[in-house]
């Protein structure tokens, strides 16, 4: 078990084209840009972002499958930049299981141990434990390609776990499973990591996976680390517009507004007015005059009211989406179209006029130019 540290890590992919045209410092695509990140010993850290954000490149650099252009990668107290993957004491699980189809499940699992020349009774002890943990005792003699995908996935995990590496690296291992199996594996994987206590770095583009499984999430976009925090920190206090937009379903409502004298928020369109009472602005944000901002409100932090007088803003219901345990309303207001999440017992129909009140303790505020949060 070990801590993983990335210090000022950059990764530039150069193509023949960029090298030819380059003058002085070469151009190329900066896949990872000045990344500083410490993954604590025993932590389950998820790298989250859309495709092309640099999350897989980061994971592959930790694994040794890519070389960092500049910067330092540490596993425990060893710098591993120059070490080949096999010497890094890590285990990698991919989206595609990469099991040996001609070997039985047990031979697939013991393969890395026999390569390490471990004594047979040690191998037996480890396999028994892993098989019990993953509930694959009953299929050890079978061939993997005859098994359902959920069991194949567990065999792939078993092969990684049995090596007892310092760090697990996983790249979207649940992506190819159907929804209900994915939900089940999320729970099992999280439980397993807690039981083993092994450091885990896990890449996904699925915010539900990231939120539900991790100790901390590192959100990346265009090679740049946006924010690192616990799931609830990321959800409740997104530091950039990108994070606010990427996390949450349905997406956060973002209302174009002006911040006046660092105290009052007024929507660009419509009558929405809010005081910043109880919120503190970032040190450099309390300027006089008007600042162009986006007011962010999650759909569950707005409430429907029949009284339109006392409401913050009013409008007409255009769409009602009953989802069973909750209902989402789209309301066309003077401040724009807003989404409101309500308990299922609240029923309104398209065409109904409703008021919306905003939970002031739970608002977000972003500078439209920098796209950074203005609230502390």
């Amino acid at each position, binding site marked *: 078990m070990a801590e993983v540290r990335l210090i000022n890590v950059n990764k530039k992919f150069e193509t023949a084209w960029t090298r030819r045209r380059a003058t002085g410092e070469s151009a190329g695509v900066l896949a990872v840009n000045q990344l500083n990140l410490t993954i604590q010993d025993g932590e389950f850290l998820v790298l989250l972002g859309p495709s092309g954000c640099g999350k897989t490149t980061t994971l592959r650099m930790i694994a040794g499958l890519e070389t960092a252009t500049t910067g330092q990668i540490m596993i425990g107290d060893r710098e591993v930049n120059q070490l080949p993957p096999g010497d890094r004491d890590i285990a990698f699980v991919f989206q595609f299981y990469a099991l040996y189809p001609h070997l039985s499940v047990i031979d697939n699992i013991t393969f890395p141990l026999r390569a390490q020349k471990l004594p047979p009774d040690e191998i037996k002890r480890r396999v028994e434990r892993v098989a019990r943990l993953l509930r694959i005792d009953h299929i050890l003699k079978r061939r993997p390609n005859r098994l359902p995908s959920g069991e194949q996935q567990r065999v792939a995990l078993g092969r990684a776990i049995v090596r007892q590496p310092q760090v697990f690296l996983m790249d979207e291992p649940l992506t190819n499973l159907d929804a209900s199996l994915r939900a089940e594996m999320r*729970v099992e994987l999280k439980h397993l990591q*807690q039981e083993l206590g092994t450091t885990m770095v896990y890449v996904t583009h699925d915010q539900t996976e990231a*939120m539900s*499984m991790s100790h901390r999430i590192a959100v990346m976009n265009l090679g740049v680390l946006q924010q690192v925090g616990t799931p609830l920190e990321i959800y409740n206090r997104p530091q950039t517009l990108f994070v606010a937009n990427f996390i949450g379903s349905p997406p956060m409502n973002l209302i174009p507004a002006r911040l006046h004298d660092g105290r009052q928020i007024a929507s660009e369109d419509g009558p929405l007015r809010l005081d910043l009472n109880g919120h503190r602005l970032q040190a450099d944000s309390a300027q006089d005059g008007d600042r162009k901002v986006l007011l962010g409100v999650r759909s569950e932090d707005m409430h429907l009211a029949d009284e339109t007088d006392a409401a913050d803003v009013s409008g007409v219901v255009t769409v009602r*989406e009953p989802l069973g*345990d909750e209902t*989402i309303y789209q309301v066309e207001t003077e401040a724009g179209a807003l989404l409101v999440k309500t308990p299922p017992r609240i029923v309104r129909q398209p065409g109904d006029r409703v008021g919306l009140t905003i939970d002031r303790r739970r608002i977000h505020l972003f500078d439209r130019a920098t796209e950074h949060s203005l609230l502390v």
Partner: protein
Amino acid sequence: MTTLEINHLSKSFGRVQALNDLSLGVHSGEFLILLGPTGAGKTTTLRCVAGLEKPDSGMISMGGARIDGLSPAERDVSFVFQSYALYPRKTVYENMAFPLRAREMPADAMRSRIQDVAAKLRITELLQRRPAQLSGGQQQRVALGRAMVREPRMFLMDEPLTNLDFKLRVEMRAELKRLQKELGATFFYVTNDQVEAMSMADRIAILSQGVLQQIDSPETIYTRPANLFVAGFVGSPRMNFLDCVFDPAARALVADDQTWQMPLSPVQLNTLERSASGGYVLGLRAENVEPVWESAPGVIPGQVYVVEPLGDRTLVDIKIGASMIKAKVPPTFAAQTGESLGVRFDHDRFSLFNKSTGEVVL
């Protein structure tokens, strides 16, 4: 008014029976969604209606007249394909004109029809653009417009949102539902995504292995599923299923492993006394399982297995005896793996299924 009537439709491909005696009706102006897993027979149904597939037996009629003998072009239905099926080199106007040119419609009539449809869809100002210059939502409108210019009696849609990214899909759900209501159009729509079905449909018809399982409003499907298949397929997280037996002496349902009891009302008792099932499955949605810290009568002891924070809510997986149960709690709820806690079942909101047939009993 029923626009489309499907009666006793069956269809096999070789030895695989894709549709088994399917009967359902689509009302005029309705958004009806056919929901089911891959291989349930959804697309086959749609293709039979469109005339792209010939059923082995059964009847399909529209507005009271049989259409099964008609060619696809004569059926007055229009398939809406995904937005990316637009011709990229043609303007929006030319994309919409394409099906009309194929019918050799006079130029004046064509122009005015396209203008009418464009106005309804609010894409008049986009007519000279090319698809690549449009947002995803605008492209979807154009795809719909291309189907609308033919003035069909019904729109058929086969998973039109599947390939969109998550955010756009959420946006397009609301957009499609709004358009359907504004236009008063009849949509017959196929998907395997239960959230899509719940959020958009007036009614959902659930298919499994070619057999209709239930057809009803989203709310009824969610709160009163007709059988175990529907209960397990609709809702996220999946409904908790717990094996139990009926104990007439205790006037309660009792877990197979004795870990819990669910008291029954006189009406429920009456129903169960007349039912002859040996075993039952109790179905409980995660929001109807309440974790509690104090032990009290009726509280079932358990242990936290995993806590899953999702932001607006948290899921807690709790081990009760040999079974695992999921509870949905507010995000402020704090618990650690391994902690002991109790759960209370909501005695008013549960489903009970016959274990051998899967049919709902209570």
